[in-house]
């Protein structure tokens, strides 16, 4: 993975930079010792590691602004970090960069029930927000599986989803406002406790910008009242085609479940072995459909879903009879990643989205690719919104396996794009899918996105090397920049 070449001038001034940063963030807020920096060398895409030049842990917006202003003036690159659970390498440090950890921003600032929102610092965990309001009967809807660990700031940066986002939306649909600091150290407020923007929707652009546009220092999210009831149905099918058709039929019937998840045989077996969720082992596809809302409605819809499932050849239908059972159904699905982690030394989690109608075709292709690359794969799938998570199993200690796993992953993502889908539904591009961006976007598309980046961060100092192919690399290739002998985008800064 090619990252921007470290700036020797910055590295040679390292001691001075550390001392300067200590004046801005006193005490233990600047981490210099190598063994302590180690803790930050990777995120959850752990195949890639890089020791940061220095780690800074600010605790106020003023400190963040001062650090960024300093780094801007001194041409030092900065990588923001929340909890480091990114699966796309978004928080991978740079050898010549400041790793800006937001962990000390861990307070809930305001619970405003009358306006149905919570104001939190970005280092509060996703679950921490729900925890702050659940005694009042509320919750924060987007629920990534990593919710006990990942931060709301990281969620904003990645526009994270969860199993309930078909009905309740991704992070972007649930964030009302942010305070954020630009690379130049300017503190801006976007949105607030009201809805929508009066001018350009900058909030909409900052959400999902993977730490490339600014550092989020405060987040206002909307909260929802807990549904009166939630019940789940476990449905087994003899083929993934039948499962896929059932999903389309449920939506075709006008039902938007709270969650609708699918697993294939390898994922079912791994999850069952790990979580003992009571999954049937003699099926090729397993659906979990959760319906939530007023009790009467849930009962009605559960019956409707059961009927649709039987029409589509379900061989196994179980409706949760209690809250414990419902949670057990989910326990299997929610532990799918660690479950795979137990049967394989390492795994890569892919994250493409496809039009749901192409599911069985894509699954067949993944099976073929699995044979070609000689690596096992298990599939979990946010079936309602077409977001596929193939988990590629490999051993990172074997360099050849890592190479094959990455090639396999890239082939899967190319397949997703070919059938009309996208490279990433919720995990972000990061470094992982960076070099595949041109399968979805042409050079004009990418240039416009880069220009947008430039409007926020003209020097390209904030989280460079992520999301977009490193531009000078494109220049070396010539392919992207030079067309018909003309130098295109000559006005674009190179970073």
């Amino acid at each position, binding site marked *: 993975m090619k990252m921007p070449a470290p700036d020797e001038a910055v590295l040679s001034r390292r001691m001075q930079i550390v001392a300067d940063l200590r004046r801005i963030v006193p005490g233990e807020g600047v981490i210099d010792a190598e063994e302590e920096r180690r803790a930050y060398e990777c995120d959850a895409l752990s195949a890639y590691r890089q020791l940061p030049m220095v780690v800074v842990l600010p605790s106020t917006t003023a400190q963040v602004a001062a650090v960024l202003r300093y780094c801007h003036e001194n041409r030092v690159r900065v990588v923001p970090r929340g909890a480091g659970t990114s699966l796309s390498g978004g928080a991978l440090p740079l050898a010549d960069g400041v790793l800006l950890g937001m962990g000390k921003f861990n307070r809930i600032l305001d619970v405003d029930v*009358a*306006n*149905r929102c919570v104001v939190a610092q970005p280092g509060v965990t996703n679950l921490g927000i729900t925890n702050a309001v659940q005694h009042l009967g509320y919750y924060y809807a987007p629920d990534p599986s990593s919710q006990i660990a990942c931060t709301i700031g990281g969620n904003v940066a990645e*526009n994270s*989803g969860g199993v309930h*986002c078909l009905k309740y*939306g991704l992070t*972007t*649909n649930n964030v009302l406002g942010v305070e954020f600091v*630009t690379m130049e150290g300017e503190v*801006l407020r*976007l949105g*607030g*406790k*009201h*809805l*929508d923007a*009066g*001018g*350009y*929707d*900058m*909030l*909409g*652009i900052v959400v*999902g910008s993977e730490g490339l546009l600014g550092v989020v220092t405060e987040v206002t999210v909307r909260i929802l009242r807990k549904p*009166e009831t939630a019940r789940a149905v476990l449905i087994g099918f003899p083929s993934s085609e039948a499962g896929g058709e059932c999903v*389309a*039929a449920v*939506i*075709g019937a*006008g*039902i*938007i479940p709270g969650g609708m998840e699918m697993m294939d045989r390898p994922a079912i077996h791994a999850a069952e072995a790990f979580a003992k969720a009571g999954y049937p082992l003699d099926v090729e596809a397993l659906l979990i459909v959760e319906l939530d*809302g*007023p009790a*009467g*409605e849930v009962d009605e819809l559960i019956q409707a879903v059961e009927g649709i499932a039987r029409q589509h050849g379900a061989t196994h239908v179980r409706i949760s009879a209690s809250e414990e059972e419902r949670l057990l159904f989910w326990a299997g699905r929610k532990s799918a990643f660690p479950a795979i982690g137990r049967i394989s030394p390492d795994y890569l989690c892919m994250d493409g*989205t496809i*039009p*749901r*109608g192409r599911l069985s075709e894509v699954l067949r292709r993944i099976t073929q690719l699995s044979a070609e690359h000689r690596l096992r794969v298990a599939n979990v799938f946010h079936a309602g*919104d077409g977001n596929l998570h193939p988990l590629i199993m490999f051993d990172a200690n074997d360099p050849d396996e890592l190479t094959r796993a990455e090639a396999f992953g890239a082939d899967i993502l190319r397949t997703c794009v070919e059938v*009309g*889908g*996208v490279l990433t*539904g919720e995990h972000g591009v990061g470094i992982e899918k960076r070099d595949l*961006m041109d399968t*979805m*976007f042409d050079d*004009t*598309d*990418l240039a*416009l*996105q880069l*220009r*947008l980046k*430039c409007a*926020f961060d003209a020097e390209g100092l904030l989280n460079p090397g992520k*999301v977009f192919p490193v531009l000078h690399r494109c220049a070396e290739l010539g392919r992207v920049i030079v067309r018909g002998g003309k130098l295109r985008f000559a006005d674009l800064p190179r970073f």
Partner: protein
Amino acid sequence: METIRPASVADLAAAIASAQGAGTTLALTGGGSKRALGRPVDAAATLDLSAFSGIVDYQPSELVLTARAATPMAEIADALAGAHQILAFEPPDLGRLYGRKPGGGTLGGALAANLAGPRRVKSGAARDHFLGFSGVSGRGEIFKGGAKVVKNVTGYDLPKLMAGSFGTLAAFDTVTVKVMPAPAEVLTILIGGNDAHAAIRHLAWALNSPCEVSGAAYLPAELTCHSSVHLVRGCGTGVAAIRLEGTANSVAARARALATDSSLWRYELPSELSRTLWAEIRDVVDILPYPASAVWRVSVPPTAGPDVVDAARAAAASAQDVAAYYDWGGGLVWLATAPGGDSGAAAIRAAVARCGGHATLVRAPDAVRALVPVFEPLAGPLAALAARVKAAFDPARILNRGRMVAEPGP
């Protein structure tokens, strides 16, 4: 003024590229229904996008619809109705508010204006349903953003930026939106009362319940008389309206769950009358039928809605000059003010600054809109950022120059 009507994307790109080269400013128009929304545009030519019309791809079970940007909303609504689906953001039809015929809007226009109706509180605005587009930037380059699937985080979320950019960044050729199942039944709980604060507490109580309320509005007594729904028109007081949508059983059960104090005037409106009432609330003009007045659309924290109205009244020559009602549980205030002077801008914007939010002067005479900022003025650094973003897409500032902010000439 010259009108350019490109027939293909290539023509569109060529037209914009040559306008950029010549520094010719262009006024973009789809159906023209919202031409009076925004500042008066300073343009040398009209770029008529109406040729980009027609549904390209619609697969109900994928919950996605792709159409050429100038497809009339009516055509979209018909296609969706055939599959019992809707645009959940409930775009208002603002035609009559501007003294035009209804039904003149296009899908691209609704997205470019980031429209949202009463269901905003539950389902979001146009921005939340705008998945992808292709179009031409102010540089004359054909480009795309987003995609055609409901869940996508690949690259910047450009559709969000385009939503609400009023044609100042790019001309859309094709757009993709998320669609949702249409609710089978609608029921509206009406609760009588004359105190806006108390009404908003009622709306909050409903929105904060697990009953999945999809509309929460308050019409004060002086405006209920304008509704064509006789129960609202004849009630003689202000009315808080709480909308429930879903299957018949579910709607009935939720209405029971939202039991109110028996001393209150309460009535439940069935589906057809509910649809009429919410269309009136959505489209504004029926509730504020004052063709001569200025109209403001103010988004604030829901509990702060009445403060904005109080401030506007205090500043008006006479309190009767201001009429207002609330949607979004109090968070959206529609205000009619006397059209002279600044149309109440200073007082309204000062009140908005105190609570956070934004005020848009949705309708006013051209002369007023040329002087009073139509969109909420941005703080310095944010305004500078917005200008840099504009320059990224349209460096020569030829697309809808001046529509969102006053811009000096070339």
